[in-house]
């Protein structure tokens, strides 16, 4: 018996969301009195044994290069094989782009209950009940997983990474890998950027910034803070910023430690994508802007005056000025 944690990776590195999933899986394993094991499909440049520091006792790898490309069907088959090989009763996977593709297939394949978007450890006092996000961050549901094998897709930034000491035992999982049904023609990736869903700090701009030419200060503040940039829907619709920066009910839902909203009114559909942020800062020249009701800190002022001063203050704090 074990808790099997799926490790997602890109550009040779473990995804942070997967290290969170592993920390979560290790904690759950100790709660259940079993061990945590990790599974990695494809190849990475990092040392697999180092996953031991996050609580994995064993790491299983299917090390074919071709597996570095996501094919949900193929991945689900391989994870199912690993579940069989390890006798896992719980599978933990990050609810990121990869998890969203793979977890539901795995659930249907194994007829195993899936909770997608978990935000806390299971309550095992009466069955196996996991808290998940519903209504776009406006509520939680406690979902009972009613099958012998359970799948938990953990929301990014919902559980902290906990790193200790230790090396995991690494072994190759001997399974047949069938050819992919999906041919990748091309990929475009802005490398070196912090992915929005994994970012701990997000600096976001709205229509109050007047035009794309004014994003320089947003990018500068973000860069100083090691943050990702985001925007409101009308900003993406007007092509001031790329669509993959659009957060909200119909965009990406994020839960960073700090969300700085600049020139965004705080419409309910926008809040739906950001209300799980731990700390929300709002900069808006209208003191009546609805966003202040959802904020922890606020400045009612003109962004074009306030943000440059924030940049200065951060530089000072970081000893750069």
């Amino acid at each position, binding site marked *: 018996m074990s808790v099997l944690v799926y490790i997602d990776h890109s550009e040779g590195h473990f995804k942070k969301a997967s290290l969170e999933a592993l920390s979560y899986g290790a904690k759950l394993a100790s709660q259940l009195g079993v061990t945590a094991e990790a599974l990695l499909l494809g190849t990475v440049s990092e040392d697999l044994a180092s996953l031991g520091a996050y609580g994995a006792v064993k790491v299983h790898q299917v090390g074919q290069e071709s597996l570095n490309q996501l094919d949900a069907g193929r991945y689900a088959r391989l994870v199912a094989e690993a579940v069989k090989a390890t006798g896992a009763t719980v599978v933990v996977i990050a609810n990121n782009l990869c998890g969203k593709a793979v977890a539901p297939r795995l*659930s249907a394949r194994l007829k195993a209950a899936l909770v997608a978007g978990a935000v806390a450890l299971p309550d095992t006092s009466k069955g196996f009940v996991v808290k998940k996000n519903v209504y776009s961050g406006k*509520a939680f549901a406690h979902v*009972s997983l009613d099958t012998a094998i359970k799948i938990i897709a953990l929301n990014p930034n919902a559980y902290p990474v906990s790193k200790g000491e230790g090396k995991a035992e690494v072994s190759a999982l001997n399974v047949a890998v069938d050819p992919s049904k999906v041919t990748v023609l091309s990929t475009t990736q802005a490398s070196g950027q912090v992915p929005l869903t994994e970012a701990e700090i997000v600096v976001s701009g709205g229509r109050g910034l007047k035009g794309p030419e004014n994003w320089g200060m947003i990018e500068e503040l973000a860069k100083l*803070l090691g943050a990702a940039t985001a925007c409101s829907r009308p900003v993406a619709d007007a092509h001031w910023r790329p669509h993959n920066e659009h957060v909200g009910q119909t965009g990406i*839902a994020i839960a960073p430690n700090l969300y700085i909203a600049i020139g965004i009114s705080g419409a309910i559909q926008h809040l739906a994508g950001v209300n799980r942020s731990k700390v929300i*800062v709002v900069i808006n020249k209208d003191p009546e802007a609805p966003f202040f009701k959802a904020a922890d800190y606020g*400045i009612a002022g003109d962004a074009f005056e306030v943000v440059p001063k924030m940049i200065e203050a951060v530089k000072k704090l970081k000893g750069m000025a």
Partner: protein
Amino acid sequence: MKILICISKTPDTTAKIAFTNNNTKFAAEGVQWIINPYDEWYALVRAIELKEKDPSTVLHLVTVGGADTEPIIRKALALGGDEAIRVNLDSSDSFSVAAQIAEIARQGYYDLVFTGKETIDYNGSSIGGMVAELLDLPYISLATHFELNGTKATVVREIEGGEETDEVLLPVVVSCQKGMAEQRIPNMKGIMGARTKPLKVVEPVAITPLTSVVAFELPPAKAGVKMVSPDDPAELIRLLHEEAKVF
């Protein structure tokens, strides 16, 4: 070309979220219902565009839900689509819903199954993947562009920090998000026509649910905002550093 589009009913994006029956039931009173935006704006509209290009294309809408989902299905038919199927099952278990859709898809021999990327109420992102697995078809999740070329489809999907262009043989299941198409408003002709389009009701196949919702919970209210003077943004940075400790 035969396309099956999955349509779900969700509360309006501005609906007040509250629960009754000891926090076990969504308080539906007074709530406006809409077509789940991802199903409507992206999946359905893209399918309609494909039919506009090739009028021989057949569009079937499927929803899994009680009779109360029919107004939503009619609204979807007003945008486009030839006929709709409602599977008469009210379930909060994604697998139960997916299994019904897979059954309809199996009987209908569709070349394409479109879903939205997620519903805005359950936020499961699960139906497409489950349907694909049950049908043993490839699944492209979170697609932002979709083109047909003969027996193949070219699909752009979101990957972490970028995009990937894939080619896949039909049939395929695709979950759709922003970029696929632009929102449309139904016209009068569409609304009138939708009334007479066939809406078939079928009984569900027997499926054992894998999950059940035990209770709902609302997040705790915010403590209130701490305002900083616009003349002193440095104070904000100090508070974020020393009090909130976020950097």
